[in-house]
């Protein structure tokens, strides 16, 4: 890819390109939708640009590694999903106090509408809370340009910057014109300065006063930002940020009123450049703020109007939905209401269609080893006759929530399943069987497992180990045995960790051996029942998507399951007990999609008529 070339880029790829153009030398992340492709892109390009890239154990570590690089004078970037910032936040708050040396940008990829998340928190609010500047792009091109801008300003003002993106921007493609990549590399050097880096109370008090001053100078920079601009000169005002701005521009054109309305597009969200806002507000009759999620800008504009003694109506969340992501239709409706226009669009909401599509939630893939593990847990619970509950966690296996398994009773945040199990084992009156993937286990479960041993909480923990962080697209984790730079490294295995935590029952099974897995889980249940402390079962088998890819490349040969037509009674028990998408009903029989089947043999185990064979 060359300078000046125009490339169709994903928002996240554009952020990665921005990091390269900004001379970022260290990039870190823990994978999480919708942020993952940023580091994935950088990990592919790392060698070419002499960059150090790592998938860290969790977001806090990712942030700390990037912060360390910045302390050493290197430009760095760390990317995470919105809830990942919660994990990193302890370090984030203090990093504002110490400030940075090399430019440091933390990318927060928010997820309005919870496409792939447990909540829709608005991370712009970290700006005022943690005293860090926040910027937000509104197109893939700007995603690249604002990444460069944030790194440069971060270094100028010696503060970490947050770049906020959302799912729709991170995962939408647009043309991006490439810029130059700097040739010169810096050498990292840590110069000791304890009074700058040690947040002892004596230093922290001084740091806070300095921090407040720093933010004032950031506001001055933001007031001249090339990424804020005013379109049109009507006396009706609209203020928008992020993708909401793109919806506003299209909506005004659609409503044919783009000449009557003046739009302030704002990309610097904290601290808000007040002089710029003031000059925009001065001659307005009324203003609508269009923003995704919270009324972040709206409240600041209202406060500013109060200070200016300006009595104009400021509208926002009364017309623009608070819940769920914005869409072109939602913005058109809000704008039409604000302008007193009647909508005559021939739109059809999904409800008004006569035909209803069958629900198709995401499911475990064909041959997924987690399916076999859930199946075995169900069998073991039945055979042991225990009254069990099933805390779980965040990953592909959260899909065990859906029928036919329904073995996910809680999902809160990364690692919460084990912490909750410590409490549930004591207070629920039920037997507790928790599930967690190996990546989440290593991310956030280790202190909780130590707690279980130390405070004598007894439960079965099944670690579903498929060797990669699968849900986000197969990134390596410490159990994988290789890293983001493609180096072979010593794997950190969940069973070794469990043993080191003091767990006396630690066994590893292959979930494709169904009977062996059932027996192992039954043994674990017995261990816990006898009061011998928590038991850990590691169900290890490579992700079936990887198995399929290897087989398509001819690297391995997979056996396939086939249905014997004469024996199949069409009872659908195979589908009803496994939910495997390779099993397809055809008339009164079942056929198996050979392209999807990995030959795991679960349907063979489930079929009451021995009509399915592994070949």
């Amino acid at each position, binding site marked *: 890819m060359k300078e000046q070339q125009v*490339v*169709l880029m*994903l928002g996240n790829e554009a952020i990665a390109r921005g990091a390269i153009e900004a001379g970022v030398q260290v990039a870190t992340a823990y994978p999480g*939708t*919708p942020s*993952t*492709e940023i580091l994935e892109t950088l990990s592919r390009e790392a060698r070419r640009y002499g960059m150090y890239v790592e998938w860290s154990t969790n977001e806090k570590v990712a942030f700390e590694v990037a912060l360390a690089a910045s302390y050493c004078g290197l430009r760095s970037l760390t990317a995470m999903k919105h809830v990942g910032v919660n994990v990193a936040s302890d370090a984030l708050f203090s990093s504002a106090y110490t400030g940075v040396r090399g430019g440091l940008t933390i990318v927060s990829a928010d997820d309005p509408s919870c*496409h*792939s998340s447990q909540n829709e928190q608005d991370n712009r609010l970290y700006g005022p809370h943690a005293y860090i500047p926040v910027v937000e792009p509104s*197109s893939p091109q700007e995603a690249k340009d604002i990444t460069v801008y944030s790194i440069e300003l971060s270094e100028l003002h010696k503060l970490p910057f947050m770049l906020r993106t959302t799912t*729709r921007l991170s*995962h*939408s*493609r*647009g*043309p991006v014109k490439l810029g130059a990549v700097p040739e010169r590399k810096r050498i990292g050097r840590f110069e000791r300065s304890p009074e700058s880096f040690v947040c002892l109370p004596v230093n922290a008090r001084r740091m806070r006063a300095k921090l407040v001053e720093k933010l004032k100078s950031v506001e001055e920079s933001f007031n001249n930002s090339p990424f804020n601009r005013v379109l049109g000169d009507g006396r009706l005002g609209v203020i928008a940020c992020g*993708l909401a*701005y*793109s*919806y506003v*521009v*299209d909506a005004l054109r*659609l409503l044919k009123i783009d000449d009557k309305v003046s739009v302030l597009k704002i990309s610097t969200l904290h601290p808000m450049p007040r002089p710029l806002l003031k000059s925009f507000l001065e001659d307005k009759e009324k203003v609508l703020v269009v923003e995704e999620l919270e009324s972040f800008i709206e409240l600041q504009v209202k406060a500013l109007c109060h200070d200016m003694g300006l009595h104009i109506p400021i509208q926002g969340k009364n017309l623009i939905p608070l819940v769920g992501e914005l*869409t*072109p*239709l939602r913005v*058109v409706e809000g704008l039409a209401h604000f302008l007193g226009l009647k909508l005559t*669009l021939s*739109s*059809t*909401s*999904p409800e*008004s*269609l*006569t*035909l209803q*599509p*069958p*629900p*198709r*939630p*995401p*499911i*475990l893939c064909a041959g997924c080893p987690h399916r076999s593990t859930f199946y075995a847990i169900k069998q073991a619970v039945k055979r042991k006759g225990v009254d069990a509950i099933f805390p779980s966690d965040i990953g*592909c296996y*959260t*899909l065990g929530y*859906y*029928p036919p398994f329904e073995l996910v009773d809680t999902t809160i945040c990364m690692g919460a399943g084990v912490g909750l199990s410590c409490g549930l084992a004591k207070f629920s009156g039920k037997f507790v069987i928790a599930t967690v993937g190996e990546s989440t286990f290593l991310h956030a479960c280790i202190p909780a497992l130590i707690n279980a041993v130390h405070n004598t909480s007894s439960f079965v923990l099944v670690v579903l180990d498929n060797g990669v962080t699968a*849900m986000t*697209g197969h990134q390596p984790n410490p159990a994988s045995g290789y890293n983001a730079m493609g180096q072979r490294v010593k794997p950190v295995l969940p069973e070794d960790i469990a043993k080191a935590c003091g767990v006396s029952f630690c066994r590893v099974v292959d979930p494709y051996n169904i009977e062996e897995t059932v027996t192992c889980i039954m043994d674990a249940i017995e261990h816990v029942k006898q009061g011998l402390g928590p038991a850990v079962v590691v169900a290890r088998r490579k992700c079936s998507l990887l198995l399929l890819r290897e087989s398509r490349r001819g690297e391995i040969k997979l056996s396939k399951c086939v249905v014997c037509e004469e024996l199949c009674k069409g009872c659908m028990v195979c*589908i*009803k007990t496994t*939910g*495997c*998408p390779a*099993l*397809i*009903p055809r008339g009164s029989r079942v056929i198996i999609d050979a*392209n999807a089947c990995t030959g795991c043999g679960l349907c063979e185990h489930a079929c009451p008529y021995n009509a399915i064979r592994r070949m």
Partner: protein
Amino acid sequence: MNVFQVDLVISGVGGQGVLTLASLMGTAAIIEGYDVRVSEVHGMAQRGGSVICHVRYGVNVNSPLVMEGRADAIIAMELSEAIKAASYLKKGGIAIVNRLEFPPPLSTIRGLKYPTVEEVAEMLQSKASQVYLVDAQSIAEKVGSPLLANVVMLGAAWSSGCLKLNRDSIIQSIKQHFKGGLVELNVNAFEEGIKALSTK
């Protein structure tokens, strides 16, 4: 003033190559010098769930999402997923549907109804000026792999006239996306998709 703009919505099931299909269109539009937005679905939703992708290109495009009731055409990679895209279709638009029937396992477990081809076609005809049903799966298998069904649908879409892109731009886009022997396979799939519609 009417400025040139094409709004498309593509639906299907995770794993069917909906994203690749959208990306091929986006790149072809860039080749022709248009402004482009493609909205994708990543992460959890991709695991065998419904996937819906928006593609917009033209002189000045901002939003990555198509507005309900304003898509010039919808392209569905699976029969029942056409219903989800249908709310985006404008009156008089074009619908191109892969005849593939893939009932979600959940509806088999719960005993839910799966729509018939006739029901889907009838619903689409109430809005669309033209509805094309394509047997993309078997065409793809004849070309070499069922995984080529998405590019067969690309050929069918081009043939319907809804893309308003040059055939050569799409072939160039295919050449940029794939490597080695996959280029020829995908170009063949595209050409077979074109024939599938023109021979009707």
